[in-house]
């Protein structure tokens, strides 16, 4: 038989829950992995839209304009640095994505923490190795 409330109670609500989340130390590794994965996923989605927008200039404005825009963007140092960020986001998202797919196959559930650290470490290594390609 389903239960019903008998008293009015105090709803601490989202705000108080978020307030608590300010203390970063309370989050556990699995939660960090989730936050990072979602954040990088959103970054990638955002990039995808921008990317399509830039590609679209070739379609709307013609290929000369497109080349000018791309060369202009690539000459900006900040864009290069952002590209490293994008690459990092992609690498982490992909590696951690593999971690999550493994869980779906019930592999590695008891070493989830270590797998998270592994995907971080590998991401670092790959991004470092990739830096010269972006800055040169």
């Amino acid at each position: 038989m389903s239960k019903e409330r008998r008293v009015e109670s105090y709803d601490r609500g989202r705000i108080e829950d978020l307030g608590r989340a300010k203390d970063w130390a309370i989050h556990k590794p699995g939660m960090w992995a989730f936050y990072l994965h979602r954040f990088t996923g959103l970054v990638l989605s955002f990039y995808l839209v921008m990317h399509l927008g830039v590609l679209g200039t070739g379609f709307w404005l013609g290929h000369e304009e497109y080349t000018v825009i791309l060369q202009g963007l690539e000459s900006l140092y900040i864009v290069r640095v952002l590209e490293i960020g994008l690459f990092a986001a992609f690498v982490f998202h992909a590696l951690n994505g593999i971690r999550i797919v493994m869980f779906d196959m019930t592999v590695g559930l008891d070493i989830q923490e270590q797998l998270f650290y592994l995907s971080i470490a590998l991401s670092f290594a790959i991004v470092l190795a990739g830096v010269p390609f972006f800055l040169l």
Partner: protein
Amino acid sequence: MKKHDVLIIGAGGAGLRAAVAAHEAGADVAMVTKLHPVRSHTGAAEGGINAALKDEDDWKDHAYDTVKGSDYIGDQDAIETMTEEAPNEVIRLENMGMAFSRTENGRMAQRAFGGLSFPRTTYASDKTGHMLLHTMYEQVMKRGITVYDEYFVTNVVRENGKCHGAVAVDIQTGEVEGFAGGATVLATGGSGQVFEHTTNAVACTGDGTSMAYRAGVPMEDMEFVQFHPTTLPSTGILITEGCRGEGGELYNNKGERFMYEYGYAANDGELASRDVVSRAELTEVQEGRGFEDGCVHLDLTHFGEEKIEERLSQILELARDFEDVDPVTEPIPVKPGQHYMMGGVACDANGATELDGLYAVGETACVSVHGANRLGGNALLELVVMGKLAGQHSANNHLTNVSTSAVEQAVDDERARIDELMSGGKEHQSVIRQDVQNVMTEKVNVFRAEEGLEEALEVIDEAKERYEDVNVKDSSKTFNTDLIQALELRSIIDCAETITIGALKRTESRGAHWRYEHQDRDDENWLKHTYVYHTEDGPEVKYEDVEIKDYKPKARSY
């Protein structure tokens, strides 16, 4: 006011089983409980549940073991009913999905337990009570039985020689509510909180026993209080008898297995009946062969990690978390602690009490299947067998003859009493409670002497007076645990008083009851049940002879 054919007060193993049985018999059933059902203390039972399941075993042997364990004061008819029904009921539990441990061929596993002539304790690792409680609650959910949880029942309603229901405080809102019922079944569990060192939960305060007592139903055999030989010294948490069943050994500080070496139980050693082992431990300690804090050692180190992990995993956790010892490498310090009330509301094998429409079942009741001493694994059995019988029987009562005005009157009275309690007083309830608990632990313990018992009775008498002017400091209506504790205190005092009076009057030693001045069993004068009645001028004691049938009293040795 809420109305149901059958009201079950308390939702431990006994209450839940009774609810299912009454529902199956076609009654409209509701449960009223101060804790949510899964929080009940049945969940703490570790060891197992007895039943003569195997072909090589015979329920008559089980009955004999139980009678012998009861020190011949258990009712032999009721014991036969219980042990004969045991296999059916345990199989019923299995069929309801209870996850018993299994043997290699996929059958329910059984192990040895103290006082049993055959390894017939069916178990679910060392969490048998937990599995039983959850399985039974699952069945209650399945049937859609109404559960009013977090309602504290304070009184049963008596008028014209009949019980009409109960009065409860809604713990969440603080409102007093009436429950009219054709039958009222008390299943409120034990009253371990009468003692300071106990394996029982904070909620085990003997409320049901006290309610029936105040409604004129006698308390039976309250002097028989079981002290478990292996509890952790700091908290009273139980270390299951299963440890000894699996081969755990008890040592004194000289490294002797004293159960054998000092002849307390030359045959069964550690697996003798609980009262025997508890007294042996205290004797060792008193004679200077104990460890610090009045303990002896329970050694499991020869099992190896794997066996402990598999069969006694909870013990591993409890010993590590609560006592900071690792049973794999070191012995566990243990000492006796209050564990179980053999006595309770006097009732027959159907749970029916003297009062028409009032039933009792489980630890709160005294059908007297445990007599002077309960065997491990028989309490859970009592819950399901007697729970079923009481449920079926109570379902014969319907709402038709119930007087709702009597319930309303009782609600008004209770409201007045609670207002009175809340209106302030001299002493805080926790102070009185502690005084009672302490004197009970010191004087009405495993060893009882006349002087100590009289002293205890004085303290209890005083406590009764002090209770008249008790103080509840919390004035809120919402979830007022201060008030609930004050209400519980009355039950604690009632139980303490009847235990002590029974113990003082019984001038013999039998089962769990041991008197310094009268160290022998006295079958000539004391093959009797004690009944204590509540009267205006204090408790009144009566006796009734025990019916001896097939099993004649013999000296009890293990």
